[in-house]
Structure formats: C-alpha cells, structure tokens
C-alpha cells in the first residue's frame, strides 16, 4: 500500500498539536472576552483537532502494517502520549456537550496540547513488538488505563477551575509546586551537563526548586489576596463566568468516579496480562505499585466523600494529590524507577 507523502502520521499529529494549541488560546480568549463566536470556534477547532488526532492514530496503525510488523499503535511513550491527548480531547468534548462548561476547555485543551508537544520530543520510530507485548491484552490494557488517566486529567482541570472560582489559597500551593518541580528539573538538567556529582545535582535541584516554588507560591498568594480585596463578593467577570462551586464539585467527583473505574479496569487487565506473560498477576513492580498508590488515594477520596461527607476544598485537594500520583505513575516511574514496564520509555 502506498500513501501520499503528506499523509504521514507524525506530520498529521504535528498539525494537530497546533490545532489544540489554537483551541486553547481561543478557549482562554472566550473566557476573558466573553464572545460567543470565540467559544464556538474553540469548540470547532477542538473537534477538528480530535478528528485529526484520530486520523493520526489510524495512519500510524496503517504505517506499522506498511513496515511489515502490523500492531496496535499503543506501545511506546510517543504512541501513548498521542493516545493520551486523544482521550483527553474525547472526554472534554463529551463533558462540554453534556454540561456546556466551556471554561473547562481553557484547561483541557492545553493539556491535550502539552501531551502532543511532549510526544513530539520522543522517539517516533516504529519498532516491532517484543514478544512480551504481543498479546490481545495490549489494547484492552492501554485503552482502559488511558481512559482512566484522561479522566483524572480532566478532573484536574475541573479542580483548578474550582480553586479559581473559590479563589482558594490551594492555588498558591499548586502553582508553587508546578514551578518548583519545573525549576528543579531545569536546574538538574543544566547542572547535569557540567557535573556528575550526585550531591551537586541534588543540591542545585533542591535549592533552585525550593526557591522557584516559594517565589511562585508567594506571588500567587499575593495576587489572590489582592483580587479578594478588590472584589470580596466574587462578582468579577472572570470569576462569574465560571460555573457554580457546587456544580464543579459534583462534576469533578463524577469525572473521578469514571477515571477510578477505568483505572481499576486498567490495573485488572494489566494483572491478567502479566499472569499470562510472566506467570504472576502481581509482582509489586514500580509501575504496578504506583498505579495501586494512585488507586488508593482516589479510593480514600471516594470514601471521605461518600461516608464522611467531605465536599469542596478537601476533596478537591485530595484529587490534586491523586493527579500528581497519576503523573508520577505515567512519567516518573519510567524516568526515575526501573521495572517491568521499561519498554514504555
């Protein structure tokens, strides 16, 4: 089979990356300027991006056959990131259709964009499958896991909106943490080019990271305080545009339930697969363990909410902790810890 040259999955997906980026900009513009035409175009761009993303995955599937070792396109970090952005876009579009919450797009579209942009940095070679991956469980395992991850990502977006609407101090912690980790990673990368000493690396990472975290955290806290002083009732246009706290709280929870169910299914399909490939359904390998840790954190949140009646801030905070565990399970384990999932890097 011969495909026209421009129809190459990596090229299609690069274009999709920019479409998601443009959609994100439009969602932000819609939130700030409140023009219906902006919102509608953002949604259309998101739909086009999603279709392109679907096409990109399908093309990649075809390309594996052209190369002679046909297989599902879900087998390395690049392919999983592409699928991750696909699931985020899909879930977001469903929620937008059902609940008419366009402000969520301002957070979901950037996540889809970031996943694809990060994918662009990965190795895109189509490698044949190693024997352990040649299994019918591959598709079921990846699909369920990533539906779970994407739901948690969307729930994270919802939680951020909740914090924005509530003008909660938690935002300062969140932004501090993001900047801290970013600064630490950057510091370690840059120092790593000059030295191999573990303590120099750890020291620069720690101090620069902590500095970045404190600076960003305090800045955010100050901004929140300023906004609160100027607008004690939360009547400002940007705050008012966001849905009610109660609605956000419930929707975040529903999304997490959806994610929890798929994470459970993902862990189970993984266990059944491991039992047929390695003769053990559970080996306490770092990836498995971290997925269990994620599961336990969200399970705690569900119990706190259902039985102890937690609502609002506290469950939102727990869901943020849960999402950081998701990110660590997905990225941290592959880069920092070794285990059976080593092929996923």
């Amino acid at each position, binding site marked *: 089979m011969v495909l026209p040259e421009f129809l190459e999955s990596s090229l299609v997906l690069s274009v999709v990356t920019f479409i998601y980026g443009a959609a994100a900009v439009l969602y932000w513009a819609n939130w700030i300027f409140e023009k219906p035409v902006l919102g509608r175009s953002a949604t259309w761009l998101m739909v086009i991006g999603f279709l392109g993303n679907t096409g990109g995955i399908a093309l990649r599937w075809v390309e594996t056959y052209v190369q002679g070792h046909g297989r599902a396109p879900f087998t390395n970090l690049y392919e999983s990131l592409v699928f991750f952005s696909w699931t985020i876009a899909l879930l977001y579009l469903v929620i937008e259709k059902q609940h008419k919450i366009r402000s969520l797009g301002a957070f979901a579209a950037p996540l889809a964009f970031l996943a694809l942009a990060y994918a662009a940095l990965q190795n895109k070679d189509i490698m*044949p499958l190693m024997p352990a991956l040649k299994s019918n469980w591959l598709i079921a395992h990846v699909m369920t896991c990533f539906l779970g991850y994407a739901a948690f990502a969307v729930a994270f977006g919802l939680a951020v909106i909740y914090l924005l609407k509530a003008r909660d101090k938690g935002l300062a912690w969140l932004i501090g943490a993001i900047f801290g980790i970013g600064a630490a990673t950057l510091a370690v990368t840059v120092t790593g080019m000059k030295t191999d000493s573990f303590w120099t690396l750890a020291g620069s990472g720690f101090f620069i990271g902590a500095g970045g975290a404190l600076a960003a955290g305090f800045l955010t806290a100050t901004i929140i305080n300023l906004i609160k002083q100027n607008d004690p009732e939360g009547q400002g246009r940007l705050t008012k545009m966001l849905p009610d706290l109660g609605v956000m709280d*419930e929707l975040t929870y*529903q999304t997490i339930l959806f994610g929890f169910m798929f994470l459970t299914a993902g862990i189970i399909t993984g266990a059944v697969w491991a039992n047929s490939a390695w003769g053990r359904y559970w080996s*306490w390998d770092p990836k498995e363990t*971290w997925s269990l840790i994620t599961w*336990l954190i969200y399970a705690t949140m569900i119990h706190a909410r*259902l039985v102890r009646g937690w609502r609002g801030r506290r469950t939102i905070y727990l869901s943020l902790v849960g999402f950081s565990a998701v990110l660590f399970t997905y990225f941290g384990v592959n880069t920092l810890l070794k285990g059976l999932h080593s092929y996923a890097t």
Partner: protein
Amino acid sequence: MNNKQTVKKPEISFVAFFASVKLSIFLLLTVAATSVIGTLIPQEASLREHYQNFGPTLFRIFDTLGFFNVYQAKWFQFLLGLLAFNLIVCTLKRFPITWKLVTGVTPGFSQGKFNSIKEKHQFTLKMSAQQAQATVLDIVRKRFRTVTEGREGEAFTVYGEKGRWTRMGFYLIHMAFLLILLGAIIGSVFGFSGYVHIPEGESVQSVENKQHEQEMALPFTIKCDSFSLDYYEGTRSISEFTSFVTIIEPGKEPWQTTIRVNHPLRLHGINLYQSTYDISQHSGTIDVQFTDPETGNSETVTTTITQMSPLPFDKGSFMITEYIEHLRSRDGHDMGPAARMHMFSENGPPAVFMMPVGEPDFMQNKMGLDVRVIQGEVTPIYVTGLKVTKDPGVWVVYAGFILILVGCLVTFFMAHQQLYIKISPKGNRSFVEIGGTANKNPQGFEERTRRIARRIENKE
C-alpha cells in the same frame, strides 16, 4: 450509607473502632505511603548491593524495618490484614441496616419527604386530577420499577422508585477486595513458583521451589525437543521465543506442544511460561588446517566439537573443547566466533589457545605446526528457561476482579431514585408538582426529573 449517628456513645468500643471509616481512610493512606518505599528501594537487589548503596548504619535500620522486602514484610501484611478486618467489621455492622432498607416495604409517597425536596417542577394540566393521575401513572410506570398511587387529602399522589438494590453495590467492591486478598493467601499457601532449565534433547520431572528450597515433583515429564529464536525480517529484534516440548504423562501417549511468551502451557493446575533461554554448548564440525612450515605440506582435518581427533604428520592429537559465538576482547570488543583448541603431543606439555573461526588468514604456530581454523558448521544447543507456577488462588482473584468491576458500575453509576408526584384538583384542572431524589449524582437525577416533568406537561 447512612453515617448520621444519632447519639454518640461515650465509650469507644472495640467494634466502633474497627468499623470506623476513619480507620479505613488511615489504613488506605498508610498502605499507599508505605508502598512508596518499595518503589524507591529496588526490591530485587541483593543484600550485598543494598549494603554498598546505603552503608552499614542505614543498611541495618532498613534491614530491621524490612525495607528491602517491603511487600512481604510482616508489618505490611499486618496493615493489609487490618484493612481486611476493618472491612469485615464495617460490613457486619452496616449490612443488616442496608438489608432492611433494601428488602423493606415500599415507603410510598410521604408529604414530609416531598416537602424536603428543594427543586420541584410545577405546572397545570387541563384535565381532572383523577385523569391526570392516570396519565402520570402511565408515564411513570414505563420508567420506574416500583410505582404506588395514593391520596393525600384532596390530592392524588404517585410515587415511583427504582434501583433500591444499588445501595448494596459497595458491598460488592468490599467483597471483591476480600476475595482478592483470599486468593493471594491461597496462592502463597498452596501454590509454588520456580524455574526449570532444560537443554534441548533433555527432560525434567521436578522443579525447584524458590520459597521453600525443595524439589517439587511434577505430575508429568517435560522434554525440550528444541528451542527457537525468531527475528523480525531484516532486523535484530526478536519476534518470538518458542520451546517445542513433548509432555510425557503416565498412562498416556506422549504429545507435543509449544510454549511461547504470552502463550503458557497450562496442565493439571501447573503453568509453564517461556521465561529465559541460554546456550549451553555447541555441536557441529570445524575444519582445521595444519601446515608443516618446514615441508610446506598442508592437511585439513574435520573435527567434531569435544571429540579427540588425530593431528596430521603423527604429531599427536587435538580437540576443540568449546565454541564461543562472540569472543570478547579485553576492552569488550566483539571479535566474532572462536574455538578453544587443545593440542596434545606424544611428549611435552599440551598447548591450549583460542582461535578465531572462519578466518584462514589468522595463523598460530603451535608444536611446530601452523594452525588455521578454516570454517565451522556449528549449531548452538539451547537451554530453555521455563517458569513453573501453581496458583490455585488465581481464580479466586479473578472472581474478585470481575466483582470489583461490577461493584464499581453499580456503586458509581446507578442510583436509588425516588420520584414524588402530587396532583391537586384546581377547579376542572389539576395542579401537578414533581420532585425527585437520588442517593447519588443528584444533578443527573435532577435532569431526569425535569425531562419526566416536561413529558407529563406535554401530554395533555
């Protein structure tokens, strides 16, 4: 899941402590936090490696705390046991209440409950209250399993209810958790796991149990006929490891089958997985050329690996004891295939040296002969490494898996829904009020109630 305790007893009883959700939350988070340890300290490393990594003091502390084997440590299993116990006590305490609620009589329309619903839909229908009740009943019966009708003074009432049993859903998840733990215990008590390494052409009928360091007899003999490595065309990536085996069972004809990665052999409750492979030795023939430098006479001898052959010109005998596929130089460079030569003379010491195979230009002079290894026709003898397990608990665990998924579906996405409708006469028209409650996802049910109200409103 009614957690509103009416009166808090002053004494904290044993049952109350172990039935508390606070304990569950504490345990869930503790298990999560302690699980992290095992991912930071590589659990498969040897004690010696740990000692080198952590130094004597930390090593002693970590070793005492069981951090090198967290998930098998007594305290970790105690935490899991406590969580299970918490779950059982909690279930025993709450189950009778839920059971009564689920199997009890249909509560029907209650003015008190109706008043407590905040958002109600109200509209007027151009028909008598009695007619309106019939219309409403028609619509509600199609959507709700249990429907009752009644009177409330002048007014007619309709009550619809469905999904009361879904209040039991979370017991399924909890049961599933216990089943998975039970399956894991059954597996560790009655199961075993070990490895067998079978060279091609040989067979085994027992396996070494890793945990108990003892030989376990298998109910059959397994013979490795051959092992094959397949590559993707034109690449060096392996596409498949396959062991071709013959199974010999007492009182049965021997039969042949294959074991591949992801395609284990399951037989009499024992599973055989393709795990590793190795090359034990090589078989085949190698052509060695010997030249007498004085006369210039040359003779090529074809020798079989590990078999003694005579040297030409009556110089003695020689043997190739080993064939190596990739000889590594001191700096790790791959020098290609090589053979280990032993030459024995009638008198004097033997010579032992390595020769590259298939490089006729390479020559070594030993015992007055120029030796060249021209070529070889060599095939490796593989050893297949099979993992052998027996785990009678796996089906219990799988049952738990199915139950947990069903439980999640019921608990998260199905609700106990109750619909209250009151129809009051208003002249020859009727005034309809509709309100609904659900124990889960109230917004979702609110939407449903709105749709039902609209349907009734448009029915006139």
